[in-house]
Every structure is written in structure tokens, then in C-alpha cells.
């Protein structure tokens, strides 16, 4: 038996040695950096293109090879826990696509401000509205892989076929409802189960965008100006919840979660929504420019148009803008090489690939103005749609308000719970009650985070004093210095309403 034991031990030791010897890193002649990103065919092309870009830009070894090898660490789009655990444990990928806010709160991201200026990927190279997403305390921590904004894609042929008025580029709720009601009335047979909807369902992240855009159009946001208090305990949030419910359960403009579950095959980007849109079961889908990746794969090119998110009458037109940002891990042994990758993201090569692949918007707004973006030669059916997305970012785009006192994932979960209560069972909670409960729960989380961290409390108290001054000035009808405001929505809103004291200069935080 002991010989058997010895034999097993020897086999294990040899196998271990072979594993170590054959590890991928050991076979590379140059340092290897890993990019934690989502699973997509485009990532492989981008990886290969980065290697070429390195050579073309002189980042080579003596024998002319790229000075670094990029490898992909593909992670499910919704699986953030892997990145989180790896980051705090010291073993995360050198570059990662992430929410800068969340990762910065963990302290795991490298400050890239100097590198960004030196290597040409500073904030001047991307949309100004993304600043709250990429910059913390005046320091830049990442650069966009792409820029996302969600609008309504319209199946033009379906509207023509039904003889329904085409959704305009900009509209209000009343127009949205009028056209929607006409669409579902004409597209469905009375007395039978509804099979065709005006647009796809507002569930998951899109539901959050719906809620946020709707409250912001009324001048409300999730947090106050200094992001010290959740302000959702407000009739305007209750109104948004009620309106959403009306669209789903009264007007039947969009399917409920249950109806969507019955129709969806839940595969690929956006599940079955794109197939339903293609076949005319949905007149519109609320989705990003990236929808084109799959729409272009369908047999017949679709006649498309794009409409902005509707706005309340005389309301404030806005749209949530976000980014899949790449950041450099603080524990990376190859930070300098990793920063080259961020430099590549700002390059023409990369931007053009995003333009051509239609993987949302290119990081650099200049590339959203060129002909290849606006009128891709291969896809004339898309002409007139692309510029709506760039307009949505430049004209209406506002980043999410992420309070430093509560994790964004907690905020979205609590808002989602409020919406679930009203949407699925109004008897469970009225919209007013759901709004109040959501605000209370978020504010409880804020208070809890203060007990956990003394330095956070000091910041909180400073900001509360500023908030007090803002409230006093607003009550007296006076303007407010822009530098007092940290909430990205309120900053933009104050400027455009003429409530900001220094709207053009000196107000930048």
C-alpha cells in the first residue's frame, strides 16, 4: 500500500510540475496582461487589433514584436461578484470593464490621470456627460470601451402596414400613449389574447432607465443635489410608477413580466426582443445602438427609425447615459502596459471598430460625426438612426447619480422592489407607499454606511451643510454655485434652468 501511496504522490508531483511548466504566461516571450470583459465575438477582434496597434505605434520589443500580449478573461455580463472578489483578493485582471463607482469605492482602481494626459485618453477624448462615470474626486480612473444610451428603435414597415402614425423623433407621454393605443388596437384581434405590443417590456435594467428618465423629466432624481439623501419619497416618483403600470396593465402598450416570460426564448443580447421586433410582434424596442449587431444578422434588412425617450409635457428632456468603462487594476504588476490598452481605446483604430460593429457609441464623440458612423455604406436602411443616439448622449445625456454613501446595486434593487410592488400587485402597496418605502430604505442604507466609516461621516456632514445652504438659496429664489452640486442630474438641470451661479466656469468638480 505504501508503494501505491508513493506512486500516487509522485504522479501528483509530476502532474503539478507539468502544469506549472505549461502555464500560458510562461510560454509568452513578453509580459501578459488580462482584460476582464464580457463574452462577445468583437472582443477577439479587438484583442487582435490591439496587438497590431502596438506595432503600428512603436510599442515593440527589439525584434519588432508587441511589447505586451493581451489575453481575455471573459465574464458573464451580469456577474460582477467575480471581479469584486478577485479585486479585493489581489488577483484581478490587469484591465477590467467595470462600474468605476463601485470599484473605486473598494479602492482597487489605479489613478490614471497622468497616464491619460500623457497617452491621449484624458476626458477631452470622450463625452463630457460621462465625467461622473469616469472621474472621482477630480481623478480619472478609466476610459470608455463604448458609450451606451437607450432609445426606441422603430420597425417602420410594421407601422406603415398598420397605417399607424410613425413615432416622431421627439415626443411626449400623450403622443406616446396615443400612437401606442392605436398600434395595439390595430395590430391585435379583439377578444383574443394580445400577441402584438407597441414596444418591448420595461424589465430589468431598462425598467430602471424608464423610471429614472421619467422622474428626471419632472425635475426629480434619486438623490438630492449633494447626494446625501434619497428624494424618491415624492409624488413625482409615484406618478412615474403609476404611469408605467398604466402602460403595461391598462393600455397594454408593453408586455408585463409574465407576458414577456411567455414569449421570450431568453438567448443572446436582449433575449428574444430583437426577434419579436424583427417579426413585428413589437412595434418598437427600447434598446441601445448595439441592437444592430443582431439586427444585421437577420435575413432581410429592416427599415428602421429611432425615437428618443418620451418626455412629460413641458418636462425636462433627458436620457440616462452610461459606459462600459475599462480601468486598470491597482494590483496589476503591469500597470504601464495596461495603460497602453486604455490609450488604444481612444485610438482611431478602436473607435472605427466600434463604429463599424455598431457596438453602442464610440468613446470619442468625433467618430459619431463621420460618414461611416452616420451613413454606413453597407446598411442604407439604418441611415438616420445613428445620429439619434449620439444626439441622445450629447443633448440629453445625464449619467446615473451614484451616491458615495450607498452602493448603487442596493439602490437599483430597492427601486426595483418598489416597482415590482406597484407593477405586479397594486394592492400590495400604492405607488405613494412604495415610493416612501424605497426612499426610507435607501436613506437607512445611507445612515448605516455612516456608522461603518468615520471618514464617510465627515464628508457627509460637510455635504449636509452645503445642502442646507442650497435649500436656503433655492427657497429664497437665489442661484446656487455649481461647485456645491455633486449630483450629475442636478448639475445639468440647474445650469439649463438658469439656477446655477457659475454655469460656464469655476463650477467643475
Amino acid at each position, binding site marked *: *500500500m*505504501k508503494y501505491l*501511496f508513493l506512486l500516487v504522490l509522485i504522479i501528483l508531483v509530476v502532474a503539478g510540475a507539468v502544469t506549472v511548466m505549461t502555464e500560458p504566461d510562461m510560454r509568452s516571450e513578453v509580459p501578459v496582461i488580462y482584460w476582464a470583459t464580457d463574452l462577445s465575438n468583437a472582443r477577439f477582434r479587438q484583442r487582435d487589433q490591439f496587438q497590431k496597434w502596438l506595432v503600428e505605434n512603436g510599442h515593440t520589443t527589439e525584434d519588432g514584436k508587441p511589447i505586451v500580449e493581451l489575453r481575455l478573461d471573459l465574464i458573464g455580463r451580469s456577474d*460582477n*461578484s467575480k471581479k*469584486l*472578489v478577485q*479585486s*479585493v*483578493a*489581489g488577483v484581478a485582471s490587469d484591465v477590467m470593464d467595470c462600474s468605476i463607482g463601485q470599484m473605486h*469605492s*473598494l*479602492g*482597487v482602481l489605479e489613478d490614471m490621470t497622468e497616464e491619460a494626459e500623457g497617452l491621449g485618453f484624458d476626458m477631452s477624448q470622450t463625452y463630457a456627460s460621462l465625467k461622473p462615470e469616469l472621474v472621482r474626486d477630480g481623478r480619472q480612473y478609466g476610459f470608455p470601451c463604448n458609450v451606451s444610451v437607450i432609445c426606441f428603435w422603430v420597425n417602420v414597415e410594421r407601422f406603415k402596414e398598420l397605417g399607424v402614425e410613425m413615432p416622431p423623433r421627439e415626443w411626449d407621454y400623450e403622443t406616446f400613449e396615443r400612437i401606442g393605443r392605436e398600434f395595439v388596437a390595430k395590430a391585435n384581434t379583439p377578444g383574443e*389574447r394580445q400577441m402584438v405590443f407597441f414596444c418591448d417590456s420595461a424589465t430589468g435594467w431598462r425598467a430602471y432607465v424608464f423610471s429614472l428618465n421619467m422622474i428626471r423629466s419632472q425635475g426629480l432624481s434619486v438623490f438630492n443635489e449633494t447626494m446625501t439623501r434619497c428624494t424618491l419619497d415624492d409624488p413625482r416618483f409615484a406618478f412615474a410608477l403609476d404611469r408605467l403600470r398604466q402602460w403595461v396593465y391598462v393600455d397594454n402598450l408593453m408586455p*408585463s*413580466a*409574465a*407576458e414577456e*416570460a*411567455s*414569449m421570450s426564448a431568453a438567448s443572446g443580447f436582449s433575449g428574444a426582443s430583437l426577434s419579436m421586433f424583427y417579426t413585428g410582434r413589437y412595434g418598437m424596442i427600447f434598446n441601445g445602438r448595439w441592437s444592430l449587431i443582431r439586427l444585421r444578422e437577420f435575413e432581410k434588412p429592416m427599415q428602421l427609425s429611432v425615437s428618443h425617450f418620451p418626455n412629460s409635457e413641458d418636462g425636462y428632456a433627458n436620457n440616462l447615459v452610461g459606459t462600459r468603462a475599462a480601468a486598470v487594476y*491597482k*494590483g496589476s504588476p503591469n500597470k504601464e502596459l495596461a495603460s497602453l490598452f486604455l490609450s488604444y481605446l481612444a485610438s482611431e483604430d478602436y473607435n472605427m471598430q466600434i463604429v463599424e460593429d455598431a457596438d453602442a457609441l464610440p468613446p470619442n464623440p468625433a467618430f459619431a460625426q463621420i460618414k461611416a458612423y452616420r451613413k454606413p455604406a453597407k446598411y442604407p436602411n439604418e441611415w438616420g438612426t445613428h445620429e439619434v443616439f449620439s444626439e441622445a448622449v450629447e443633448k440629453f445625456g445625464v449619467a446615473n447619480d451614484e451616491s458615495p454613501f450607498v*452602493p448603487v*446595486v*442596493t439602490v437599483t*434593487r430597492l427601486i*426595483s*422592489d418598489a416597482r*415590482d*410592488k406597484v407593477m*405586479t*400587485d397594486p394592492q*400590495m402597496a400604492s405607488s405613494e407607499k412604495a415610493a416612501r418605502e424605497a426612499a426610507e430604505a435607501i436613506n437607512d442604507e445611507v445612515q*448605516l454606511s455612516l456608522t*461603518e*466609516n468615520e471618514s464617510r461621516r465627515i464628508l457627509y456632514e460637510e455635504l449636509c451643510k452645503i445642502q442646507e445652504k442650497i435649500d436656503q438659496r433655492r427657497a429664497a429664489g437665489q442661484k446656487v454655485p455649481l461647485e456645491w452640486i455633486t449630483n450629475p442630474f442636478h448639475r445639468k438641470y440647474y445650469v439649463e434652468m438658469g439656477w446655477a451661479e457659475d454655469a460656464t466656469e469655476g463650477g467643475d468638480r
Partner: protein
Amino acid sequence: MSRASQRKRSRREVATGLLFLAPNILGFLAFTLLPLVLSLLLAFSNWDLRLHNMFRDEPLKFVGLDNFSRLLSSDDFWKYMGNTLFLMMAIPFSIAGSLLAAVLLSQDLDGGSCRSKWLLVVGAVFVSGVGILAMLGAGVAAMTLLIGGVVGLILTGGTMGGSTVYRTLFYMPHFCAGVATYILWKKLYSPYSGPINAVLSPVLDNVSSAVNSLPPGVVQAGLWLAVLLVIVLFAFGYYRLFDWWRQGDLGQIGLLIAVVLLTIPIATGWNWLPVLAAGVLLLAVAGLLFAGLILGLLFGDRPFKASADEGLGGAMIFSAVLMVGMFVLIGLGSVMHHLPEMATDNGLEPPQWLSDPAWAKPALMIMALWAAVGSNNMLLYLAGLSNVPGELYEAASIDGAGRFAKFWHVTWPQLAPITFFIVVMSMIYGLQGGFEMARTMTQGGPAGATTTLSYYVYTEGFETGRLGYAAAITWTLFGLVFVITMFNWKFGNRFVND
């Protein structure tokens, strides 16, 4: 062989044995014991990933019982505890299902028996019926074809292959990967295109027409019938407990706990009834019965004495069964009251299962029940059944016992040790479980309706990063599991040995 060489050899054998065990022991120490101890320490600290990780130098503070006190005063914790306990209500049903499956599968199902021939005929009828329908192009009846075909094939295959086929089929859910079955069930629960609602819809339509054809008062009388039945069950429960107490079969502790369990449905359910008078009636009659019980206990004759914890296990099971029954009746009564208004001309709507907060938990329970019936529990019962001595059945037959009497007086007591083991393990798994199901099917929603304690641990630990707090939840859960297991061990074990 000298004593010295014997000792040497013995030492060498011990050393060899330890060497073999070393990987396991080291693995246990490194990957189980150490993390366990660390997690206990963590539960008393303010460890938050946002403050304490390799890039932050914020000192870790020991906060004593702060995490636990916060936990116990948190509405979320109690809500998720409620969800976990609600889902655990499937445990008695799953045990009963496993036992039933085991009893059925222990029967002789070989091809020669008369029953098997009948099964073969039924199976053949199903299969040929399906064939004819398919030839006639009965596309609209696709679900009927599918279900009929599957049933026919199972019956036919079972008849040819004997009980092995059935046992394999019943055990099949246990082979399947969890996530795959969850996705499958998600499709089955699909409200408008899933087969479950496809089957339910016509049934509900018929119920709806029947309800619409009756005067609303007749249907709503079901509420009063339910209240009456609850009172009957309640009175029966008190009577049996009092009788056991008088006969010396039940001690004070058992009586107290059983009475509390029996009273819970009345104390909580009277307020749920849609008609106030019905709730008040229920409360009043229950109050009178309770007063009667107290008077009986104080002044009644008790010829036989018992120790304080005598008969606790049996009394608890008895009360728990009645409690579930009373809850079901209260729920049914409420449904009957609302039925006429629900039964519109379009018929009753089948549930929206996973997207409705009221139905999401029952949906997960039904799925868990399906998986549990044919699980290891069934195998344990099958093994237990094969060990029941045949002479006990023979003796029972000689005494004139029928099928049910044999089961109740021979099979059930003989299986008591296995039942005890299954109950203990199911409660442990029940308290710890629900994470994969909820993560895959509902993401803990809608509105947190399917978030269990284990899911809560995940969200606190890996979404918000509060590891100290998450560890406190875990240890609270452990405490709960430990207390329940000890309780089971102390009282359930005695019940088994009795």
C-alpha cells in the same frame, strides 16, 4: 516477534495510515476549519470590502454583537426568514411524497401480474390514442399529445421493465443539474405559453362557468363552511391533546408547545378572513375552547402523570399537521368568498407564477417538491422498506389488519429512524437552501418574495461587500439550524425509539 518489533511495526502502520489521511486532514484544516473559525471572528467585526481589503488601510474593528443586534432589528432579515420558513413548509409534503413513491416502487410490478397487464393495456391505449391524434393532425392538442404520449410510454416501459424503470424515472430529477432543471421549470411556469397554465386554463374556465351559474351567496357560503371546519379541527386538536395529557402520554412542555402551534392559525388567520363577522366568530369560539382547555387543565382529573417532556415529538407533529390544515382552510375560505367576483366572463386567470409575489414562493415549493419526491429520501425509504421483517406483516395479517392498518402499525413505526434522519437533514437543507433556485429563476424577486436567508448572505457579502454582517447572518442561521437539530435530536429521537 518481539514486543519491540511489534511496537515498531504498529508505529509504522499508524504513520502510514496518517500519511494516507494527511491530505484529507490538511484539506479539512485549511479549507473547512480555518475558514469556519475566521468566519466566526468575522461575524464580530466590521469587515467591509469597501474599507478592508489589500488596498485599504482602515483598521478592522471588533464590534461585539453589533452585527447581530442590527440583524435582529432588520426588517429585511425577518422578511427573508419568513420566506425561508414558508418555503420549508414543503418539507412535510416532500417527505410524504418520498414515502408514497417508495411504497409504490417497492410493489411487485413485474410483467406477470394482473395489475401490470392492466397498466400495459392503459399504456398501449395512450400511445395508440396519441398516434391516431397525430395522424388526424391534432396540432392544437400538442400538449395533450405530449403528455399522453409520455404517460403511455412510461406505463408501457414500466410494465415491460418492472419497478427498475419506475425507480430510475423517479430518481431522474436527482441526476439532472440544478440550473438546467430550474430553467426548464421556468419555461413550464411560463404564464401564457407554459404547459402548466395550458392545463390549468380549461379547468379554471370550467370552474368559472360553474361559479357564474350559481348565486354568489352559495359560493360565498364556502367561507363559513371553511370557518366551521377550522373550528372543528381546532376543537379536535384540543380534545386530543387534553386526552393525551390526562392519560399521562403528554407532559407540560409538549402540551404547551402543541397548544401554541395549534393556536397560531387562529391568532393570525382570523384577521385575514374577508368578512369581519367570520373572523370574530372564529376568534370567539377559539377563545371559549381555549378557556375550556385551561379550566380542564386546572381542575380536571388526571389519573396518570408524565414527565414534562413526555410525548413532545408526537404532539408537535400532530399539531403541525392540524396547523397546516387550518391555514389551508382559511386560505380556501377567503378564495371562496372572492370567487364570484374573480370568475368573470373570461374565466378565472391562471397564476402568473414567478412574476407574482403571491405565487412565486408556492411555485418554487412545487418545483422543490418535484425534485424531493424522487430524491435520496426515496432511496432511503426503499432501503428501509426492504428491511422491514416480513413476519411482522404476517402477524398483522393474522390479527386481521388491513392494508392501511399494516402501514400504520408496522411500516410507519419501522421506518421511524429513517424518517427522523430525513426530517433532520431536510430541515438543515431547508434553512440553508433556496439560493440557486432564486438566483436562477427569480433573482430573489418579485419584490424580494423569494429572497431566502442564504440569498441574503450572498447579496450582503458579494453585492454590498459587508462581509462581517454576512458572516453574522450565516452564524445566526447556523444557530437556528443547531437549535432545531438539537431539539429534533432530544425529542424526535425519543419518539423514534418509542
